């Protein structure tokens, strides 16, 4: 069992000799443990030391993958599937939608997938009812189905759980998980600045995305949120303009009906990723007010998340 503490410490100084020490150091906490899935582990973690009525606290599903293996984004691309989470929540709690960090382009020249390698934390906001009466600890559990791939794919299932105290005081950050949540938050796409404008023209076999950001952009990558709109493997041709860029996105072969909007994540640099939602045929603002994390069509029914 790899404990969270060890991972954090290993990041700082990965010495084999600390193994025993961290094992001992981790043992007394013992609130969470990582569960094995093929070529990876998954652990349910919390950002706060405790929960209080009326607050939304963040839980996280931290996946740690063996080198070369990956899991998938909400839109997995040409193959694969995203992790699915089925929550078993204590009374008085509601789970929000998974906040998906910006993925990487994976795959080959002809088949392109979107996913995560190494490690990733999927943040899930958990809302505590204002009338939460309990003083006893809240026990969260989730059943996770996940596809882990290198070149080949192996489906995995894991049951994770976490018990968090319920108190009257406002929740305090847990230093043991602070770094993982900070890293996860940094890798989330952000809403676009209000001054930015995007337009989308539909051509025969492609979409032409025009961005006016107030400055020339030489590099950009678009990750479509909705499957079968954009050809994932086709090169995204970027033409810098004085105020931004124009990007040609080839339509997916599976797209045979006109689309109304194109939603996705626009990556300009390693720490600059934005959620865009552009209406076809309109030169308009980039987003329609849906915030980071609340990806479309991810409604929650009975705490289940797909």
């Amino acid at each position, binding site marked *: 069992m790899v404990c969270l503490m060890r991972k954090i410490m290993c990041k700082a100084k990965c010495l084999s000799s600390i193994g025993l020490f961290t094992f001992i150091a981790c043992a007394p906490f013992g609130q969470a443990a990582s569960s094995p899935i093929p070529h990876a582990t998954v652990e349910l973690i919390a950002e706060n030391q405790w929960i209080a009525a009326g607050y939304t606290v963040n839980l996280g599903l931290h996946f740690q993958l063996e080198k070369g293996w990956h899991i998938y984004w909400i839109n997995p691309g040409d*193959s694969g*599937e995203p992790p699915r989470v089925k929550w078993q929540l204590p009374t008085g709690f509601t789970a929000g939608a998974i906040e998906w960090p910006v993925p990487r382009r994976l795959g080959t*020249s*002809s*088949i392109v*997938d979107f996913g995560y390698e190494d490690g990733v934390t999927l943040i899930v906001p958990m809302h505590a009812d204002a009338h939460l009466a309990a003083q006893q600890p809240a026990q969260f559990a989730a059943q996770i189905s996940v596809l882990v791939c290198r070149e080949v794919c192996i489906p995995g299932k894991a049951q994770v759980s976490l018990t968090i105290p319920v108190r009257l005081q406002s929740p305090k950050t847990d230093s043991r998980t602070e770094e993982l949540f900070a890293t996860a938050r940094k890798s989330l796409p952000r809403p676009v600045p209000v001054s930015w404008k995007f337009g989308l023209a539909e051509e025969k076999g492609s979409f032409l995305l025009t961005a006016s950001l107030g400055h020339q952009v030489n590099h950009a990558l678009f990750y479509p949120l909705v499957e079968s709109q954009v*050809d994932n493997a086709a090169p995204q041709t970027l033409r810098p303009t004085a105020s931004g860029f124009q990007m040609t996105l080839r339509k997916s*072969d599976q*797209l*045979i009906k006109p689309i109304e909007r194109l939603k996705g994540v626009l990556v300009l640099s390693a720490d600059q990723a934005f959620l865009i939602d552009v209406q076809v045929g309109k030169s308009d603002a980039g987003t329609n007010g849906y915030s980071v994390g609340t990806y479309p069509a991810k409604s929650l029914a009975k705490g289940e998340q797909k």
Partner: protein
Amino acid sequence: MKRGIPLTMLIGLGLCAFLPAMWAAKVGEAAPDFTAAASNGKTIRLSDYRGKYVVLEWHNNGCPYVGKHYKSGNMQRLQKEWTGRGVAWFTVISSAPGKQGYVTASEENDYLAKMQAAPTAALLDPDGAIGHLYTAKTSPHMIVINPQGVVIYDGAIDDKPTTDLSDIPGATNYVNLALEETMAGKQIETPTTRPYGCSVKYSDAKH
């Protein structure tokens, strides 16, 4: 367009980028012809099946999504049902040598026998030529071609993109739907979907 780049070079680049797309099969367009070696020793030419409905099923015996449909007997049921109704059903294996799912003819024949699979034939496509011709992305990626030789369905086998056998009974099977609708003279309601599954293990797949 920026000055300084020779026009011929731009045209050349453009052609390279769009050639595969131009030839790829698309719903509503003519199904590209091909000739393939089948595991039973026969040579199959698609155009010889003009006048029949044809189903192409991309296959990889190591893929858990394929496993879901074979272990449950779902794929075999579909093969028997539709070949029984005059449809030519070709299982296509585009895994490159050394990649997951690559099989020799005799290995495939053993697999077909063991699984009691009943396609019209299993086509061996180790260089991925047929796969690329149809832009096959996954196993099982499904293509349906009508008797006039036009692609009428391109996508997933059903609407449950998972590896769980328990998802099969409640799934809407798109191949069944497309064939039933078209044979009844109706318009196919869902002619394209995202073909779910494992990526096809072409020779360019990294290892």
